């Protein structure tokens, strides 16, 4: 071995060959930062509430809201959740049952699309919530009126997204499938359905948000039970801590449902998620 070769070997040995690993905090910052933000806001809020001593009728802070929540949990919370949950779920199920067949058919037939799309789009973009009082007159104070409100709010986003999904099916993929011997049934199962899936989930996500508004506002307007009813009642009694605890319940529920849908999207349409990530 020449001197030069030896030298090269030595240098090679002393170079930092191992890639640098960043610390745990740095690697998890995307997940840690939002938590830190929430904790910071809560802390400031709590401190402000304790120091300032504002009137508890108009202002509350985390520890007070927490005891308000405990109060609710020992009282009407669970039966309210059951009522609101039933309204929400029933409304969503009926919306999907209406939206899926109609949306798919409208996406498949050009004529039906031309005929009905303007109406559907118009109904989607009008705040149909203004019909809520009428639905209460029709369906009464109970669960049925809230279910009806959810249905008129949530059907259209699912329907529109399904229609667009079908219409946006990649023509080249349809051509490829046909070229390789697919029959009509194969085309629907192997091309149209998978392309529609992400659109469907997007529709569901929009529908869930609207359904939640429908339930709460419906209960606000006219009802005898439910989270929305409870919030309204507490607000009128100036039981601000309990009122805000009710709001927190809704926030937690919304976040949970949205996360569930995101998870579903990753499971059912992984290619789409990863394609977006890759860009």
């Amino acid at each position, binding site marked *: 071995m020449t001197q030069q070769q030896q030298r090269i070997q030595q240098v090679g040995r002393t170079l930092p060959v191992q890639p640098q690993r960043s610390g745990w905090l740095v690697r998890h910052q995307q997940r840690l930062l939002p938590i830190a933000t929430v904790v910071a806001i809560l802390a400031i809020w709590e401190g402000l509430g304790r120091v300032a001593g504002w009137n508890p009728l108009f202002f509350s802070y985390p520890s007070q809201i927490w005891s308000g929540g405990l109060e609710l949990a020992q009282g009407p919370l669970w039966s309210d959740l059951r009522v609101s949950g039933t309204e929400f779920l029933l409304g969503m199920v009926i919306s999907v049952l209406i939206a899926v067949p109609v949306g798919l058919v409208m996406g498949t037939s050009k004529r039906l699309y031309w005929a009905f799309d303007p109406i559907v789009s118009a109904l989607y973009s009008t705040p149909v919530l203004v019909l809520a009082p009428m639905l209460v007159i029709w369906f009464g104070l109970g669960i049925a009126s809230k279910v009806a409100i959810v249905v008129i709010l949530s059907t259209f986003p699912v329907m529109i997204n399904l229609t667009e999904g079908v219409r946006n099916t990649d023509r080249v*993929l349809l051509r490829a499938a046909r070229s390789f*011997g697919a029959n009509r049934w194969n085309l629907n199962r192997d091309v149209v359905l998978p392309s529609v899936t992400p659109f469907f989930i997007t529709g569901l996500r929009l529908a869930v948000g609207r359904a939640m508004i429908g339930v709460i506002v419906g209960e606000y307007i006219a009802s005898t039970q439910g989270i929305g009813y409870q919030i309204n009642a507490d607000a009128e009694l100036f039981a601000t801590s309990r009122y805000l605890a009710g709001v927190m319940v809704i926030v937690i529920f919304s976040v949970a449902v949205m996360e569930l849908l995101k998870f579903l999207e990753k499971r059912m349409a992984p290619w789409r998620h990863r394609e977006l990530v890759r860009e």
Partner: protein
Amino acid sequence: MSTAGITASRATADGAPPLVEVEDVTFFYGESLILQNISCSVREGEFVSIIGASGCGKSTLLQILDGALQPAAGRVEVGGKPVAARNAERAMVFQSFALFPWRTVLDNVRLGVDYRRRDLSRKQRNEVARDYLNRVGLSKAEKSYPYQLSGGMQQRVGLARAFAVQPTLLLMDEPFGALDAQNAELLREDVRALVAQEQRSVVLVTHNLDEALQLSDRILLLRAAPGRVEDDINVRELRDDAENWRIDYSRHRDRLWDFLRQEVAAAQGRSLEDRS
């Protein structure tokens, strides 16, 4: 007819029976005449390239051969039968790969096998797909999804998918058009090897003159507006008869380019006229 076929790497005699017969085919898109009285044929085992300016109707012709479009007039037969949408003898390779993003690589290759070989069990169909995936050197990627592969690898999947149905006629529409030069070159080698191994007949649409001259037995020159066959060049005969193919090659390439240049210029002229 040439008798110099001995030197050819494949057993494609000029006397082989015709596999594809196109006679007086005319095609309209709505009002506009795209193809007018096109006639051509492809013999068994033959490699035919189609060259023409953009928009002259090459893809249209290929889709007619695939049974995806019906001509207004004329006769199109593959293997002695009129082409129907779901005949088993054809397979297509697409410029944009046309892979299914929600299917793994193996499931993509199995697509045509699933539809056409309903007599086979799922296990057998997987075996066929694996075999062809192996031939394009992608065995290790069978569980990957298309978006995880480079363009060159994706088109290899497209090739494996086409060859897996063991088509008598392979249709390729600018299959290397979306690839970088090096990957295109590699894929050309793959295609050449597969076509030779499997004795397939091929119709290739391409803009690349060298590709056409290197791969084909024959080149069809398509004229535009409306599409007609301008010339039918027997490259294999030229190659076999040439004393020095390298010298002749560049002469033929120049000739092809002269034709193409005129066509492209004419197409540009037409589009300017349309605008004024």
